[in-house]
């Protein structure tokens, strides 16, 4: 099964990359883009047909390796 993990900075944590991208977009004329937050995105191939198991494993992996719990939070989806 394929799991997708989205890792984003916690809302209270400053995202300099997102801010810099917004500013670039504004100078490029995209004034309607109000805010950008940048995160990481992972696609995991998990060898199981049990989607609950895949989800649990992806969450565990996100917890231990993919996300930095001090500043980031994550979300898991199974596709």
């Amino acid at each position: 099964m394929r799991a997708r993990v989205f890792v984003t900075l916690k809302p209270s944590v400053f995202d300099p990359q997102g801010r810099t991208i917004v500013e670039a977009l504004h100078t490029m004329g995209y004034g309607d883009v109000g805010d950008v937050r940048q995160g990481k995105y992972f696609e995991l191939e998990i060898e199981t047909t049990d989607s609950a198991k895949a989800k649990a494993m992806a969450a565990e992996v996100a917890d231990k390796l993919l996300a930095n719990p001090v500043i980031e939070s994550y979300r898991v989806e199974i596709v």
Partner: protein
Amino acid sequence: MSIDPQVLERHGLKPDEYERIVAFMGREPNLTEIGIFSVMWSEHCSYKSSRVHLRTLPTEGPQVLQGPGENAGAVDIGEGLAAVFKIESHNHPSFIEPYQGAATGVGGIIRDIFTMGARPIALMNSLRFGALDAPGTRRLVDGVVAGIAGYGNSIGIPTIAGEIVFDPMYAGNPLVNVFCLGISKASDIIKGVASGVGNGVYYVGAKTGRDGIHGATMASAEFDEKSAEKRPAVQVGDPFMEKLLLEACLEVMKTDALIGIQDMGAAGLTCSTTEMGSRGGAGIEIDTALVPQRETGMTPYEIMLSESQERMLLVSKQGREAEVEAIFEKWDLHAVRIGHVTDDGMLRVKHQGQVVAEIPNRALTDEAPVYRRPMESPAYLPEAQTLDLETIVGSGSPEKALATLLSSPTIASKHWAYRQYDHMVQTNTMNLPGLGAGVVRIKGTDRALAMSVDGNGRHCYLDPKRGAALAVAEAARNVACAGAKPLAATNCLNFGNPERPAIMWQFGQAVAGIGEACRALDVPITGGNVSLYNETDGKAIYPTPIIGVVGLLEHADRLLTRRFQRSGDVVVLLGDSHCEVGGSEYLARVHGLVRGVPPSLDLKAERALQDLLVKLAEARLIRSAHDCSDGGIAVTLAECCFGSQGIGVEVSLMAVDAPSSLQVDATLFAESASRVVVSVDGSLVTEVLQSAAALGVPARVIGETGGNRIRLAVAGQIVVDVATADAERIWSQAIEQVVAQKVA
């Protein structure tokens, strides 16, 4: 509102401190004011435990342009130029989030330097971690090194030197000390002062968020189970913003439209407004509603206490505001007027016109509490200092012991770390990392600056006074080994909880040792930083003063490195050797012991040695110089060979006076201070020996460079005979091998 004890506790204020606040104010402070007091009276900002000791440090000399008290110190380096430098710790934040903690540490010290009007040209760092192979260390090492690289590389300041020590004592409390040096015209040094009633107070840089609120008080409290809850939002560094700030500020400073400028570091807006006002004998009034904010609904309390990074406060001359604003605009930064200078000596904070805090600057700075905390020699000391040499059986295999030491992560090559640092940007770096002191040339002159950061926690644990003096001596000696004359020093004092008399004793002793050494070596202290409460669950780190010394090469082309330059040169040992194995890397690594007393230090002899080195370099009488420290003369000789395209060395050493089973090991690995290995062209040996004799420095020919093996004899007997290439492989791969293993 009535202030209950819980509120005080959360702010780290003691009941008697609160009473002092009420007495000064003549009324009960409100919550915003409590917050302001709490950060300004925190250990981090007020130096309340350390101040009485720091006062004893020598801070003057004809070379000193700016001593402690400003954002950084400055020394005269000739031709109308000043070197501006300082060291700071970011230990606690780096433990919580290694990458961002280290990165923002770099960002902070860089701001301290350009705030003074100097262009930063070099960075160094001094790091302490637990054993490299212990669980958890790798994550910290990876993160801290990447964080230093991430910030320094991006902003374009080379990281040219540093040190990393691994010891289980730092497992729960790593140390991240960062040093920065900048250059300015001596006449252009700018201070963090506010003056001139009505002058505009400007805010520029990143917007203020809720990050790091109470960072200063956190840095003043030890870690325990509960600190997880106290964790403030981690600060994220933005090197790009800081690069813009750096360029814009330096451009603004050239206009002379500024009265003063200061970065917002620990305690943010609170500390910068108060300190600028108090240095200028003025007051500052600001309105927090005018402060650019990243989050909505921030209270004046939060705005005043935020520690968001990459922000500066400046006071502009009246009538010059437009000029200042235009320069910041060019760099896409918006300088915002948030208040003005007053003449009443008050910090007055308004929010949309309403006064929300009003405190005399003096109450926050000069009148902050000063403690003469009780000191008591630690209980562990008598036992730890006892070392019965008769009971220690030598390794029996000096070659194996040498290999053990060369592969000790503390001694092994730090190439893995520093190749992640851009150490060449700005095209000034003359001594690449790993060759001894970091050396940068000063463009437009013939001059160069050499710098080194050093400290030995194990020595300080066993004798903080001598250990700290040894650190000063070593840093200055490293600079002298590059051929530079040591000019001045900065220091970062990393200790445990000062409320414990044993820790306070370590602190007092260490400062006394630093003072003594700095006086004797004529390297006044121009600034520094104190980091206390380096403990986890009541277990303190080794007392670890880190010393940064800066020295001057009047002729950059006289620069020396540790490396042997060619075969057939004569190897001369400067200084005397003794059976001083106490607190050595040898004892720790080969025997698993941290015991004894650190090597003795004769400061007169040390001074003579350093003077000699500078003279020899200036007269081009020697080709290389390397000081003996961790691992003793055997490791030193091996390191002289490394990176020299495999040149070997053959020496014969006189045995030191030691119990017979220990004699060979002690000769090879004892860490007697004030020793340097130099290599000399055969035709110049007599002259070198005569120069040494003239200054009273013991000097002895011990061998010759050449071949491709390291051959060491003690008392006429060859005890080490290894291929240079093999030894170099062990040394250069030791750290890489451990870090290459996959993290579990």
